[in-house]
Each structure stands twice: as structure tokens, then as C-alpha cells.
């Protein structure tokens, strides 16, 4: 029943009562003797107008865009009833009453002007017989009827109009209320959804936290309140300290698991006089940095109930409540027993290499020298040559041992740097001079380019010299006979830059970033059977890095390679050479 809406009646529905009443009138004329057409023309005109009005009502129903013209329908209805009344006995016609139907329609429209339209329409309809000249004499009763009836109809129209207005106002109020209710309902639903979402988020966060808490088994995580009373104890703490959460939570204090002497030492360092200004100096020392909001990792010793001690790296952070006040502390500890042992073994190994390999080499080199210096039994030229080979190789071995020792020191972070303000031009010159004999015998020219001023860096002259030596001897090693090695020093953007450029065999682009890995050798090096073990650049890189510098490389296979060392300048003397 979609097309009949009582809430919004269509023009066709509004027309229906009038059309039906009109049809009944026609039926009465046909059926009831004595009720008859008195004037054919006006009767037929009335019927025709009624048909037009009904057709229009149907059209307006179909085409809502013309709805603003819909009042034409009741107006034409009134004209139709007026004409039909005139044609069925005029003032004596039975059908004057039909007029009330279009009047009600018009009066029900919003706005008081419709009352006037209804009155005017009624008057025109009632005076219709006079217009059509059907009443030969103007009768007083006719005129009165033409005024009185429209007045009554106008009254009825005013009542209908007012009732309709009131009901419309009420309807609108109800609609508004319904709309408001809907909005509120929608908001409630949205809020419920949000609530559900937040709850899911909180639950997932909580689950994540629980999972992480349980997954941390290699770190002991202990939570305490501000006095150090333990309130959280993760599986890592169970594993490390061999106690269950139930044995410690709200029962024991975190400093029960520390060596008292260590806490005392630290509190003395921080100037906490025991028992005076601070209630528990040991605990205060433990959380000092965390309390100040600084993350701190420090080595401490945990002590188990059975007296076993465990060295740990401990990070202490504070816990804060919703107001940002410190509510306690978190102690995250990593057992460093194993890493300490590894470090000790490494140091031992480095010491072993240093001692056990250098001692026999000391003997070899020392005795070879004795042989050479024996004035009582001088060596032949040939013997001296053989001795030279043995010495050269012993020195080579010694250098290798030194390099290994050095890389081991770099790895363990125990790389001693004896740093002073150092003039780089002297270091570069010395490195170039020491490389000249080997370069000359290999048929390679070394060109040195120094700046007019002396770049000064803060560094270890011996190590920087070693870095230059490595780069220059590499360049010479990888350059074919007749080639050139250019060593330049310059000051650029508050940095000293040493460049060692050769016309050698070059390095494949794909291998450039592996150059400073330990024992790495470029394909071009192995293919050309250039001797070496692949430690030189590792060492050079370590030295340069320790000087807060950069080691750069550009290379093209078959064209050459350029290594550049960039180190921050301390100052640049303005003295012109």
C-alpha cells in the first residue's frame, strides 16, 4: 500500500471524496426521478470541470514537482460543483453541499489566506447560476445565500485551517522529538561501540603486557614501591634468584638481594651518610639516578639466599602514577657472568698470542742478528742474502701478530689511543718516505701533495702513521709497474683529508662495502695473486674511527682506487710553509 500515505495524502487521495460525492450526485440524477438536469450546458460543464480536476489530481500525484500548483484541483472542483449546481436546479440543487469537500481541502492547507480562497471559491460557485443567466430575476434570498453560505463555509474553513495548523504543529513537534530521540539513540550506540573498542584495546594491551612479562626469562624484572618493597617478580627473576613470586611479593625488599658492602660504597660515593639524613642510604643509592629521571645501567652483584653471588648489569627506572608522582621502581637485571667470562677468555687469548708468538719471534730475530753481527766469523755475501730472506719473513710474521693483536684489542674495546695535537703533514711525509724504496723497486712513482699550512688533529701519531702506511703500501701493492700513487693532504670544511690515489687494478663495486671486514680480500687481489691476509683495512678503519673520522673509498676496476681519510681538525696554523 505504498502509494496511499495518510501522513502525506496525495492529491489523488484528497480529490477522491469530492470525485466520489460528484459521482454519487450523477447516480442520483440517473436513478431518482425528480432529480434532474435543468440546464444541459452548465451540467455538462460541471462534469467536464470535475473530470479535469480529477485528471489534474492524478497528474500531480504522478509528478510531484508540480505540487505547488495542486490547489488548482480544489479550485476547479469548486467551479465544477458551482456549474453542476447551476445545471441541476441552481438554488434548488441538491448538490450545494458537495462544495464543503474542496473547501475543507483548501482550508486544511497551511496559511490563513486559504480561508479567504475557500470563501471566494464558495461565493463564485454559489453565484454561478447568475453568471450563466439561469436565474431571470435577482432574488434577495439568492444573494443572501451567496453571502451567508460562504460565511458559514469560511467559518468551517477557519476551524479546519486552525485544527490543521495545530495538528501540523503537533506533528512537527512529534517529528522533532522522534528525530532527537533517534540522534540520542545513535549517539548511545556510538558510545557503546567506542566503549567496546577501548575495552578490547585495554584487554589486548594487558594481554601483550602479560605475554611480554612472561616471555622475559633471560632478564630478571623486579618491581617495587617507593620503599623498595617488592610487588612484581617476573619469570626471569624466578630463574635468576631461585625464588617464586609468592615468596617475595609484599614480603621482601629489593635490597635484600644486593651485597650490602656494594650499596654502602655507592651511598658513600653519593654522600649519603648512613642513618642520618637518609632513612635507607643503600636503597637510595640504588635508585638515585632513576629518582632523578635518568636511565642508568650499572654493574651490581645480586646475592641469593644461599649466599651465591651473581654479577648483573642492572637498569633502574621509576614507575609513575596517573599524577606523574613516583610510585615505585623497576629493576631490570641481566646476568653478566657469561659475558664477563668471555671477555676474560678473550683477554687471555690476546695475552697468549702476544706472549707466545712474539717470544719465539724475538729469539729468531735476535739470533739472526747475532749471526749477522758475528765479527769473528763474517758471513759470505750469499749467506747474508739468505739471512735477509729469513729476517724479512720473520718481520712479516711479527707484523701479522701485531695486526692480529691490534684487531683483537679493537674488538674488545681496549684499543689504547695515545692522543695529542698532531701535525698530519709530518705523518704523511714520513709514511711516503718509508714507502719510497719498495715503490721504486716495483717501478711505481709516488707523488706527494701537501698544503701550505699544517693541519693539526687530535690523535695518536703512531696509529695515524700506521693507517697512512697501510693505505700507501696497499696502493703500491695493487698498482702495476709504471703506475703512480698520489698521496695528498688538504684541509676541507674543518677536516683534514688524506687521499691515497693509485692507478692500480681497482676493486669491484659490489665488494667496496666489505673492504674493512676482517680477513676480506677483494677478487682483484686474489686474482692478481697480491699477497696479504686482509687485516690492513680493518685496522685502518678502526684507527680512523677511533679518531672520530671517516674512511672513504672510490674505485673503478682497471682504472684505480682512491682511499680518503677524513679527520676533524683541531686548528690550522696560519704559518705559510
Amino acid at each position, binding site marked *: 500500500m505504498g502509494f496511499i500515505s495518510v501522513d502525506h495524502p496525495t492529491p489523488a487521495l484528497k480529490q477522491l471524496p469530492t470525485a466520489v460525492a460528484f459521482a454519487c450526485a450523477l447516480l442520483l440524477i440517473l436513478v431518482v426521478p425528480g432529480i434532474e438536469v435543468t440546464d444541459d450546458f452548465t451540467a455538462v460543464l460541471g462534469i467536464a470541470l470535475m473530470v479535469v480536476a480529477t485528471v489534474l489530481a492524478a497528474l500531480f500525484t504522478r509528478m510531484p514537482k508540480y505540487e505547488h500548483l495542486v490547489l488548482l484541483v480544489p479550485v476547479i472542483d469548486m467551479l465544477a460543483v458551482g456549474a453542476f449546481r447551476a445545471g441541476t436546479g441552481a438554488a434548488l440543487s441538491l448538490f450545494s453541499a458537495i462544495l464543503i469537500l474542496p473547501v475543507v481541502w483548501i482550508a486544511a492547507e497551511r496559511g490563513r489566506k486559504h480561508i479567504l480562497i475557500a470563501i471566494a471559491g464558495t461565493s463564485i460557485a454559489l453565484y454561478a447560476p447568475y453568471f450563466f443567466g439561469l436565474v431571470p430575476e435577482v432574488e434577495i434570498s439568492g444573494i443572501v445565500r451567496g453571502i451567508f453560505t460562504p460565511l458559514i463555509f469560511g467559518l468551517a474553513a477557519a476551524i479546519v485551517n486552525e485544527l490543521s495548523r495545530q495538528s501540523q504543529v503537533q506533528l512537527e513537534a512529534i517529528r522533532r522529538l522522534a528525530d532527537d530521540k533517534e540522534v540520542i539513540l545513535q549517539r548511545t550506540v556510538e558510545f557503546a561501540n567506542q566503549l567496546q573498542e577501548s575495552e578490547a584495546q585495554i584487554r589486548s594491551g594487558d594481554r601483550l603486557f602479560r605475554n611480554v612479562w612472561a616471555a622475559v626469562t633471560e632478564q630478571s624484572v623486579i618491581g617495587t614501591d617507593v620503599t623498595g618493597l617488592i610487588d612484581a617478580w617476573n619469570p626471569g627473576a624466578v630463574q635468576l634468584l631461585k625464588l617464586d613470586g609468592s615468596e617475595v611479593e609484599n614480603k621482601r625488599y629489593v635490597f635484600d638481594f644486593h651485597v650490602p658492602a656494594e650499596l654502602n660504597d655507592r651511598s658513600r660515593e653519593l654522600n649519603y651518610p648512613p642513618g642520618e639524613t637518609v632513612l635507607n642510604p643503600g636503597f637510595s643509592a640504588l635508585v638515585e639516578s632513576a629518582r632523578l629521571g635518568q636511565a642508568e645501567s650499572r654493574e651490581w652483584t645480586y646475592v641469593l639466599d644461599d649466599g651465591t653471588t651473581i654479577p648483573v648489569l642492572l637498569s633502574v627506572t621509576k614507575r609513575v602514577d596517573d599524577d606523574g608522582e613516583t610510585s615505585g621502581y623497576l629493576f631490570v637485571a641481566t646476568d653478566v657472568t657469561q659475558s664477563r667470562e668471555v671477555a676474560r677468555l678473550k683477554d687471555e687469548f690476546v695475552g697468549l698470542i*702476544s*706472549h707466545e708468538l*712474539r*717470544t*719465539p*719471534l*724475538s*729469539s729468531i*730475530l*735476535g*739470533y739472526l*742478528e*747475532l749471526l749477522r*753481527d758475528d765479527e769473528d766469523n763474517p758471513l759470505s755475501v750469499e749467506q747474508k742474502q739468505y739471512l735477509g730472506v729469513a729476517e724479512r719473513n720473520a718481520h712479516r710474521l*711479527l707484523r701479522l701478530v*701485531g695486526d692480529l693483536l691490534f684487531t683483537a684489542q679493537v674488538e674488545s674495546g681496549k684499543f*689504547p689511543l*695515545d692522543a695529542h695535537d698532531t701535525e698530519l703533514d709530518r705523518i704523511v711525509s714520513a709514511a711516503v718516505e718509508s714507502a719510497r724504496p719498495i715503490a721504486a723497486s716495483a717501478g711505481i712513482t709516488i707523488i706527494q701533495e701537501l698544503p701550505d699550512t699544517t693541519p693539526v688533529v687530535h690523535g695518536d701519531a703512531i696509529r695515524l702513521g700506521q693507517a697512512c702506511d697501510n693505505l700507501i703500501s696497499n696502493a703500491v701493492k695493487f698498482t702495476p709497474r709504471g703506475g703512480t700513487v698520489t698521496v695528498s693532504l688538504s684541509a676541507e670544511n674543518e677536516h683534514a683529508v688524506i687521499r691515497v690515489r693509485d692507478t692500480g687494478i681497482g676493486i669491484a663495486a659490489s665488494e667496496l662495502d666489505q673492504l674493512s671486514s676482517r680477513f676480506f680480500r677483494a677478487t682483484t687481489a686474489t686474482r692478481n695473486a697480491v699477497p696479504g691476509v686482509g687485516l690492513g683495512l680493518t685496522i685502518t678503519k678502526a684507527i680512523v674511527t677511533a679518531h672520530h673520522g671517516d674512511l672513504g673509498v672510490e674505485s673503478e676496476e682497471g682504472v684505480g682506487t682512491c682511499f680518503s681519510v677524513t679527520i676533524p681538525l683541531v686548528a690550522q696554523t696560519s704559518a705559510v710553509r
Partner: protein
Amino acid sequence: MTTETARRVVVADDDADIRALVAISAARAGYDVVASVEDGDRAWGAIQEFHPDLAILDVAMPGLTGLDVCRLARADATLVSLRILLLSAAVDEAARAAGREAGASDYLPKPFSPRALVAWLKQESGVDA
């Protein structure tokens, strides 16, 4: 060179070949090697026994180290004129500083050149002579 003027030296190193190399160099420099021992305890015994002019000590030895012997000697008032040369395979500045702190007169890193050792010894006896 007579025995009256020859300066006396105690040599200690756990490596027999190095010990011999040092002894040969000392002899070449005109020193009289009164004892050549393989550990720190024996070295300290020999120093107390012979009151030599010079002790050449390896740092890393079983028992007392060269540094230990150095400290013992420096604490002994009867050994004020004893010169001590430490030999060590450790080459860094920290090892050198440790030697100085223990009271060594000088420090020679291994591997050393016998030629350089002879020169040092000759200079040492010249200074004191």
C-alpha cells in the same frame, strides 16, 4: 777488561733462548753475567745474593713477575744502586707506565735487537763508570 771493573748483571727470563740471547749481548757489552735464571723467585734470590749492578728481567714470568721483583728491590734499602731493565712482549703505553711505576730504570719491548741492547748496556756502564 778486568773482573774488577766488569759490571755484574742478573738475567731472568722463562724462555731459555731469550735468556741466552740477553746473556750473550751482556757479555758482548763487557758485563759479567753472575746469574741467568728462569723465574722471578730465583731472580729475587740471585739479586739478594749477588747485589749486582744491573738486573735484566722479563715481565711475564712464573712465580714473581718482573714487576714484583722490581718492587721488592725498590723496597730494599741495600739495593739502592741496582739498575733494572725490564723486557716485555707487551708494547702499549700502559705496560711501559706500569714498569716505570714499579721502579724500573728502563723498558725494552720484545722483540729487541741484540745490537740495540748492547748499545744500551754500553751506554749504561759508561754513565755509571
